[in-house]
């Protein structure tokens, strides 16, 4: 058997691939955070809850409305996105003029409400969502067994990330968004409906989280707490990458997934902490983050 630093090649490459898949989730979530942060300047602490709601919408949609996975892939982010727009309109807007820390606290409170309420109805054991028929089974790659569904997750997540990047960096709507980030007052003067743009942006950001939730539903148990611990890791990813760039969020997310995968091969005890250690290192060397701009 080929060995890499004392680890069989099969395990090594397999772990890298799995790390990349985890990284795709980090990328999707930190991308959503970055999009929201860009315009609203708040850190959406409810992002984990939105991811969780996306998974729950998928699960409950199948259970009670007979909505299949592929439809859920579109409908769940739409539903959660609409809920997010409502939250922005009714709650976040009212504190828009305040210190942005209040936004963090408000969304933290919302996350507690969503999680706690669902725990009361569904417990925390987690429900299982079946892998869609067409993606069951896997490929024997020789060096590892790759379940089809995971390959799909990787492709779908990276695809959506790149699509988002393209939309923001290369389209007119994206140009508005970037301009709104730089100078909202000027945009308003030019006749752009900035409040609407803000609402749509928040909706889109949480829809990205919900999309990640749909992808996660067949992979992990669907439980009310599935988002909260993941979110803290994503926060660390965001600190490492800096919120400045869309591409930065994507690249950092994928890279952190890879690093976590490698840690699992060589020192699994540190798998939970390695991203935080990287964060400390980045803070020491480059406090604004790898892709961050000077504040």
């Amino acid at each position: 058997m080929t060995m890499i630093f004392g680890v069989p090649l099969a395990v090594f490459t397999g772990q890298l691939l799995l790390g990349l898949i985890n990284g795709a989730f980090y990328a999707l979530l930190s991308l959503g955070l970055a999009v929201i942060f860009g315009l609203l300047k708040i850190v959406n602490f409810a992002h984990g809850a939105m991811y969780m709601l996306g998974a729950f919408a998928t699960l409950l949609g199948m259970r009670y409305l007979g909505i299949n996975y592929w439809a859920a892939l579109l409908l769940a982010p739409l539903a959660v996105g609409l809920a997010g727009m409502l939250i922005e309109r009714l709650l976040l807007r009212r504190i828009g003029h305040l210190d942005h820390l209040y936004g963090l606290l408000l969304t933290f409170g919302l996350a507690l409400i969503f999680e706690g309420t669902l725990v009361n109805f569904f417990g925390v054991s987690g429900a299982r969502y079946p892998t869609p028929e067409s993606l069951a089974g896997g490929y024997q790659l020789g060096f590892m067994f790759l379940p089809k569904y995971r390959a799909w997750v990787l492709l779908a997540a990276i695809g959506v990330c790149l699509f988002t990047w393209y939309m923001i960096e290369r389209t007119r709507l994206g140009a508005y968004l970037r301009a709104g980030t730089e100078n909202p007052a000027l945009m308003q003067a030019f006749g752009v409906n900035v409040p609407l743009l803000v609402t749509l942006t928040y909706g889109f950001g949480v829809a990205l989280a919900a999309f990640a939730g749909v992808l996660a539903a067949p992979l992990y148990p669907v439980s009310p707490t599935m988002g909260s611990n993941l979110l803290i890791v994503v926060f660390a990813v965001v600190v490492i990458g800096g919120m400045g760039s869309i591409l930065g969020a994507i690249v950092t997310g994928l890279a952190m997934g890879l690093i976590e995968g490698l840690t699992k091969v060589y020192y699994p005890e540190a798998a939970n902490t390695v991203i935080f250690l990287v964060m400390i290192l980045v803070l020491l060397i480059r406090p604004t983050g790898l892709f961050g701009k000077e504040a």
Partner: protein
Amino acid sequence: MTFIKKTLVSSIAIAATAAMATAAQAEISDGTVRIGYLADMSGTYRDLAGPGGLEALEMAIEDFGGSVDGAPIEVFSADDRNSADVGANTVREWIDQRDVDLVAGMVASSVTIAVTKVLEENDGFGIVSGSAASSITNEHCTPNHVHWVYDTYPLANGTARAVVEQGGDTWFMLTADYAFGHALEGDVEKVVTENGGTIVDKVRHPFPTDDFSSYILQAQGSGAKIIGLANAGSDTVNAINTASQFGVVEAGQQLAGLLVFLNDVHAMGLDTTQGLLLTTGWYWNMDDESREWAERYYERVGSMPTMVQAGIYSSTMHYLEAVQATGSDDTQTVREYMMKQPIHDFFARNGRIREDGRMVHDMYLARVKSPEDSTHEWDLYEILTTIPAEEAYRPLSESQCDLVQN
């Protein structure tokens, strides 16, 4: 306010005692039997005990008649949120402020160990039904609690031994990286090597973990016949689900879940869990007596009881019978009586409480049915063999408990 009420109540109690001029230990304190139910009501372990366990406790009290010789039975309940400090503080207050005579339930081992320390200090009494750690009646034993349903020793002894005997002699251990997992891992290693098997490799995963894919990959790379899961609750569920996604069973490896509850199997479904070997202290469909009780429970709760929920009913009954027989709710009087009485009900067969507080009873090796063999939603296990009470648990000769004279 509670303070004033309490003084008032206890002074009345003192007056009553003096008036009747009876021996203090043959009295039910304050003329009320108070039972506190402490469990995880909202977290990871909610479904294996939780609100269902409270319902089982209340069933026991109703079946007993609601009072002991005219003394009413009062129930308190609290959510320990799997936190040792919440649990210990609640129990401290129950004893200080409400004169709670029995603490029942108790799930997470960490909470239980903390609570038993409080019970010992304040001369309270507890019956542990939900916890797994065998240390609860080993190095952490106290004269103030007994341990009912099961512990890690028979889990290893039952499942791991059976698996090795069926030819599963090379193991890869997947262990939750904390005390409970370490203990279970240790017990399994002992059983496997004693029976001629070997542990090929092991990996410890953080607690809790959602994503087991990389560990499963390592287990596949190890070439071991058996992947032993020394974890519990959502970790076990996640590991089994992930293994199914990676086609572990199809590739010829077998999983050994060492602590799997009925609700876990129900949640995961038979497609994923079929063929899984497990050790259980009770199964609702194992005979007429069990079925009869389980169906009554089902009507109240809407799901079939786990072994923990059944054990709560069984232990509460035994406790109330002891209070009635001795006419006292004094901890040592009741405990002594409970130890003398053999336990034989719908839950426990050949049961007795040893001096270390361990209630030993017959345990069962079960296999999860295939979807084809299962006739309805809760028809999940097939009982393979009975592990006799005296063989199932850690022998007293190996005990580190101070209450055992070795």
